């Protein structure tokens, strides 16, 4: 019972980080109908940037987030302008899979050359601290990561629902033709949307680097997990990304702590399969164009 509850706590705290990563993925899909296979590589790039700021200048990874998100926002915009915009609109969804995978490989190569393939981790003074609550350990880094992920998701929610830009983004998601007729510049929204997705990857990367060791090849495992989360939650739905992340993290942690880590991934995929059998569009996805 103790292991079960401890696993539950770990799963919930970790879910926030995955929700943040997946929110960028699902945002990009919602706006552009692009499945961004480079999202995992962008998270790892965000982790490397936070690592570099921490080791070179002693900047705490949490405090580094405004810097890394700024840098990665512009990188995302550049990727959209250089690699995605030239694609023909009617083939964009299919070709973008290849293009974003190529971007992932490009980023992996750049990271390998810059930081080598040695596994890195960000070790702050509080990395191993934890609080004891009713006999259970709550890791400080995970708690902060969870709270910060909630904050970042909240800011994203406000941006999408309380700003002019957000209205343009939502309009583009719901009905791109009507949005264009009403004066929304679809291409500008796409660039900003991709930038925002990259920025969330940067924020999640800082936290990821605090929690797990990583190297340039870490994005392969990450992207498969992210795709599973957004498909489970429903492509294009940020609420779905949060729900998907919760299901993935909690089921993985609980099964790993009570049964076996070998079965934890399997359990999740069984859940994914069952959900897709009942709701092919995912938990929060809509069959037609929907909302974010």
């Amino acid at each position, binding site marked *: 019972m103790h292991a079960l509850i401890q696993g539950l706590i770990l799963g919930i705290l970790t879910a926030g980080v995955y929700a943040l990563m997946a929110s960028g993925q699902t945002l990009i899909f919602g706006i552009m109908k692009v499945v961004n296979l480079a999202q995992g590589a962008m998270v790892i790039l965000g982790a490397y940037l936070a690592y570099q700021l921490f080791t070179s200048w002693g900047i705490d990874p949490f405090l580094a987030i405004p810097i890394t998100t700024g840098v990665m926002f512009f990188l995302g915009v550049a990727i959209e302008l250089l690699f995605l915009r030239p694609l023909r609109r009617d083939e964009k969804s299919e070709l973008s899979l290849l293009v974003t995978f190529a971007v992932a490989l490009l980023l992996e190569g750049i990271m390998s050359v810059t930081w080598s393939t040695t596994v890195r981790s960000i070790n702050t003074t509080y990395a191993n601290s934890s609080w*004891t609550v009713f006999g259970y350990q709550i890791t400080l880094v995970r708690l902060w990561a969870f709270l910060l992920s909630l904050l970042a998701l909240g800011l994203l929610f406000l941006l999408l629902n309380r700003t002019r830009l957000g209205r343009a983004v939502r309009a583009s998601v719901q009905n791109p033709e009507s949005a264009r007729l009403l004066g929304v510049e679809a291409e500008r929204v796409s660039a900003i949307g991709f930038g925002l997705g990259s920025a969330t990857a940067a924020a999640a990367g800082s936290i990821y680097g605090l929690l797990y*060791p990583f*190297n340039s090849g870490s994005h392969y*495992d990450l992207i498969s997990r992210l795709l599973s989360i957004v498909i489970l939650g429903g492509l294009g739905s940020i609420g779905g990304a949060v729900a998907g992340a919760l299901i993935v993290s909690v089921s993985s*942690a609980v099964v*790993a702590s009570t049964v076996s880590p070998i079965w934890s*991934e399997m359990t999740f995929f069984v859940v994914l399969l069952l959900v897709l059998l009942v709701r092919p569009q995912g938990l929060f996805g809509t069959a037609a164009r929907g909302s974010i």
Partner: protein
Amino acid sequence: MRRNRLRRLGSLAVGAVAAATLVGGCASSGSGSGSGSGSGPLVIGASVSLTGDFSDSGKAVQRGYQLWADTVNAQGGVLGRKVQLKIVNDASSPTQVVTNYQNLINKDHVDLTFGPFSTLLTIPASQVAHRYSYAFLAPAGGGPKVFQQNLDNFFFVQPAPTTQSGDVFANYVLSLPADQRPKTAAYAELDDPFSAPIAESIRQKFEAAGITTVYKQVYPSETADLSPVMAALVATKPDVIVGGTQSEDAYAQVKALVQLKYNPKMMYLSNGANSPLEFPDKVGAGNTEGIFSSADWFPGSTAAGSDDFTAAYTKKYGGTAQQIDDSSAEAYAVGQLIEAVAAKSHKVDNATIIKELHSGSWPTLLGDLSWSANGAPTGSFNLVQWQGGKLLPVYPSSIAQATPIAAKPAWGG
């Protein structure tokens, strides 16, 4: 992560072995084993991973080979012949490593070959060398499949097969008086050929001696988060924790235990904890105290040539003795063996090397080495323990620089 790529490379290895067999089959059997008995430089070829997954360790191997060559050349060479190294990059690819050794032997006509890094590359490479009757001394690559090939030209230049490296910890624990031995043990094992078997070998010895297994879990290499596994392990409150680990998972186990505030009476990690630089950096220096691991070479070793190696290494590459990678020492030992055979037999050809190394034991900086017919070394590793921020050999007593601390100090202290 990285291990996914290793798996992918694993499938490539099968192809590489097939390619090696095919090419070897087409070549004239037994053609030209490098005689090494001529005049002029003694040319030694080696394929080393200078890029790719194994590049860090591959470069350490290269440093070891080069340092030995420089050292022996400064003393006049081997039987008066200057050593000339021809090192080529295999990019950590089991396909490329086959091509490299084919070229080294058939195109460059090197006199001798030294091994690459990792079991993955050693298996196909040793088959190429065997096809041409070259002695194949490998400083890394001690997985079970290497020895299952039963190649008479192969010699693994470490004290014991990798999967037996933890036996020294079991021997130490079982040497303690009964009232000081742990009563219960937990095992967390990485599912790979170098990690889980080490812990399993310890478990068999412990169970035979009456130490109860309260938890055993094998985790796949893809496991991103070990905290749930360690939470379940902690719930069983074991006296001793045995980690069949590589590197990142070793760090993750320690960090999870610190976060879960559980301090076992003893802890052994098969790998990861034996890295003098990486381990304290990754888990925090205060959390290393009392943790056991296994090693073949350590600074301050009194084994043959160890002091000279340490001095030459720090002079050539800088840094401190503690910063020397084991792989460099193992590669250096390969050269020492060639020197020793030449000194004894006054020959340095492949047939002589194979014949001589199969008889008797040979002094190196890793200790005295000897091999069974399949190239598996017959010795044992040393038990090392973190004490006062240093990784010290503590068992067996013949090599110990400190007394083992049986009761692990608290985390952070």
